[in-house]
């Protein structure tokens, strides 16, 4: 081996420094990005909520005051929205958690058939905006609903009950995924051990199954609570006079230009949503700690009666979830639902600003969101988990907070800060597609980063050390080793971001402008205008676009099948 010259060593040293610099630079930029587009807009809302407002000038006139909060809490009509929100959130949480648990239990602990199909059917609500449930319920059970008329039902779907049912249907997959993971990860041999010690099935369930999965259950419940209390689409459609916090924010801001009340209610909504998020986070950690990595034993055949019960239950749920979607699709092809049952495609000729183009706008915005969001969150996960710079902890914190902030609050934060001369960003953001893109990326930053981190954790450190010892620098080991190993999780992040971006309402409802029309917002506007045919048509198109895109991406990502060879060597 030749001796290395001093110059060479200096050169190498600089390379090391520049590699460290690169990590700091990228991590720092992501941090600054989150500060500008998450912390500051939300902080600004907190500030404005305690700022004096002039309802004549429709503007904040400075001066610290608690008047806005006093105003809110002194008006019984206002305070009602808080009660309403808590009421629907609590009941949605209870129903969803129980139903999702039973569904997940059937999929993981019984021998019912068609499990994969059932699992995917349970995911269906994810591909539609969260107002589809309300639309479907009204079409079936509204005063002029199909089933109401058919069976001469005499009930009222509008208001709290309608919202609760909608939220259950909407949040079902979110809870189901968590419970499915928990139930399949907690060692089911514990149940077998209890059974072998003579415990009857019911005892085993209450003494073993429930306690071992309780953190997963709590974490699912907290998530549902968060989803239900922050949802905007369903309550605005089916609530009628029943106002919740999110709809109240919207009505105050858009309807009455009362930014003071808007920001105040936003802060009030932020509190339960933050608490629910923190609980969810805490219980998820606890739940993960109980996960056993042992190989799963075969599930013994379920008793016929139990099997039949779970089969009927699962397919009933699946049927309902598909029906919600199906009703809207079918509805979009009838001239006038309940009155004129002739087939038509006329609802697909949209007479709205932007026309069918809104779908295209949503698509390309979502495509950008998907690619940029997935790349950013992957880099973020890599830096936090593998590179661990000194600011890894604060960066992690900044990255997980977005999930705690209701979309509506974030959206309100954006318009309130980017309609000012703040950092001169108004030129490129105000009323532009860019503000929507950034907003959706930030709003969904948490899940992207967390999934990236957990994926990075699964990549053995020695993998990168091997690359390093063979002479690869940070950039090359990232491009040639880390990125390829993350391909699958990267693609699932792309799908997630795309889906969220296509269907989100609450995050962007304040951000659409005469120049930027989005499909999901078009659905809500059409529906509010009573144009139920076109709104169903637009919702159908969103679902179709999401399905096709996911299908194509999934085809792309398909893993190469690796055959295990019989080993003759050893």
């Amino acid at each position, binding site marked *: 081996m030749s001796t290395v010259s001093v110059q060479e*060593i200096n050169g190498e040293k600089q390379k090391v420094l520049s590699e460290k610099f690169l990590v700091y630079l990228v991590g720092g930029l992501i941090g600054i990005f989150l500060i500008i587009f998450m912390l500051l807009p939300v902080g600004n809302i907190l500030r404005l909520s305690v700022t004096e407002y002039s309802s004549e000038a429709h503007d904040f006139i400075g001066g610290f005051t608690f008047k806005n909060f006093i105003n809110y809490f002194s008006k019984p009509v206002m305070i009602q929205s808080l009660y309403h929100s808590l009421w629907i959130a609590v009941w949605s949480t209870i129903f969803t958690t129980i139903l999702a648990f039973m569904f997940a239990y059937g999929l993981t602990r019984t021998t019912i058939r068609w499990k994969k199909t059932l699992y995917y059917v349970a995911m269906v609500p994810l591909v539609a905006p969260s107002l589809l449930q309300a639309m479907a319920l009204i079409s079936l059970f509204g005063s002029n609903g199909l089933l109401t008329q058919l069976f001469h039902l005499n009930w009222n779907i509008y208001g709290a009950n309608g919202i609760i049912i909608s939220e259950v249907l909407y949040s079902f997959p979110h809870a189901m995924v968590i419970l499915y993971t928990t139930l399949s990860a907690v060692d089911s041999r514990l149940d077998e051990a209890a059974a072998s010690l003579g415990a009857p099935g019911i005892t085993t369930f209450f003494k073993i199954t429930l306690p071992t999965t309780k953190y997963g259950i709590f974490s699912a419940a907290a998530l549902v609570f968060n989803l239900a209390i922050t949802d905007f689409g369903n309550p605005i459609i089916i609530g009628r006079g029943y106002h919740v916090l999110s709809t109240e924010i919207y009505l105050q801001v858009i309807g009455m230009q009362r930014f003071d009340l808007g920001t105040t209610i936003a802060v009030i909504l932020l509190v339960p949503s933050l608490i629910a998020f923190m609980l969810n986070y805490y219980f998820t950690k606890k739940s993960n700690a109980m996960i056993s990595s042992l190989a799963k034993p075969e599930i013994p055949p379920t008793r016929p009666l139990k099997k039949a019960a779970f089969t009927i239950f699962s397919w009933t749920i699946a049927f309902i979830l598909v029906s919600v979607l199906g009703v809207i699709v079918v509805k979009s092809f009838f001239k006038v639902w309940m009155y004129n049952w002739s087939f038509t495609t006329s609802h697909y000729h949209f007479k709205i600003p932007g026309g069918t183009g809104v779908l295209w706008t949503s698509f390309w915005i979502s495509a950008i969101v998907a690619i940029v969001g997935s790349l950013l969150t992957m880099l973020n996960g890599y830096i936090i988990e593998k590179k661990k710079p000194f600011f890894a902890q604060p960066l992690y914190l900044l990255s997980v907070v977005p999930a705690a902030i209701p979309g509506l609050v974030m959206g309100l934060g954006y318009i309130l800060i980017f309609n000012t001369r703040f950092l001169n960003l108004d030129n490129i953001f105000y009323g532009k597609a860019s503000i929507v893109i950034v907003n959706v990326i930030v709003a969904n930053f948490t899940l992207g980063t967390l999934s990236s981190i957990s994926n990075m954790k699964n990549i053995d450190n020695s993998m990168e050390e*091997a690359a390093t010892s*063979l002479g690869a620098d940070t950039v090359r080991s990232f491009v040639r080793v880390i990125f390829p190993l993350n391909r699958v999780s990267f693609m699932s992040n792309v799908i997630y971001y795309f889906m969220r971006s296509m269907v989100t309402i609450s995050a962007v409802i304040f951000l659409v402008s005469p120049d930027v029309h989005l499909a999901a917002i078009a659905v809500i506007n059409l529906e509010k205008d009573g144009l139920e045919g076109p709104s169903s048509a637009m919702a159908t198109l969103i679902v179709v676009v999401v399905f096709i895109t996911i299908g194509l991406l999934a085809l792309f990502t398909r893993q190469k099948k690796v055959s295990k060879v019989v080993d003759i060597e050893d």
Partner: protein
Amino acid sequence: MADNLVLEGVSKKFGKSYAVRNINLEIRDGEFLTLLGPSGCGKTTTLRMIAGFETITEGTITYKGKVLNNLTPQQRKFGIVFQSYALFPHMRVDENIAFGLKMQKYPKDKIDSRIDELLGIVGLENAKKKYPAELSGGMQQRVALARALAPHPDVILLDEPLSALDAKIRVKLRAEIKQLQVKLGVTMIYVTHDQEEALSISDRVVVMNQGVIEQVDVPVQIYKNPKSEYVADFVGSNNFCEGKLENGRLRIDGKPYKFKLDYDPSLELKPVTAAIRPERIEVVNGVDTSKMDPGNILHGELLVYTFLGLIVRMIVDIGDKKINVDVLEKNFSKKNISNGDKVDLYLPPEGFITFSKE
């Protein structure tokens, strides 16, 4: 400089506690050196400091006179074989081997010929286009070895490379690694917690305990002349007893034993721990013991015996203590003893090793 790699006063601190403390070691060119010790003894940390994955808190590591402390792993250009293999799962075997060559910008034709050469060396010509997941653990570890060898490193660092494999493959592969090392003349630093593995393949063994070196020596000396009670206990098995040396004998407080044994005269009247290996103890049932020192003969009862193949391990109860005795299986059969039988043991004076308690 004859010494390939020199560690001088090397320490590693994690927080306030030392993981490795004041390591001084010279590794010779072409040597097979093993770091041996239980988990947490600092052997892997030491290896990782040599590799460049851990910073060095104190001391220096030099390679051919050049200080390595501030060089990155890339700059040190050592080959590393990981316990988990760390093969890139998305690359074929040939691509894995080529990785280091590409990073060092070898020309294409040289890369191709080097891949074939290495596959020949590790005997995996047929696996060239396979993915790691298609190979058995043993084959994967050979690929990892080939990948580490590819860019012609002078030193190969191996971190428990065989511990994830089945016992049989482990023995086979360790012999192969040794042969390869001799053939290529490459320096290997090998980390293991398996003392049998360490003794069987190393030129020298470094026994580590709680971050410090207990002994550095050739395998046979490590086994025969352990320098500390710790080494005597960790390498092979031993029977221990504590007592005081007096007039050529070991006396144990409150016990009737007066073992005659050989010891360093400077230990006279000092408290010591004496050790004797199970295979040094003889079973003397029905043997003429007149020439043996009666103080070194013990009478006991066979509690249980275990068949270990070539030898039989007997556990003999001598009243207040249980003693391990290893005898050749054929001798054991001849004696015709069974569990519960009376056994007479002879502990030859030269079989004892003593360690000062001070």
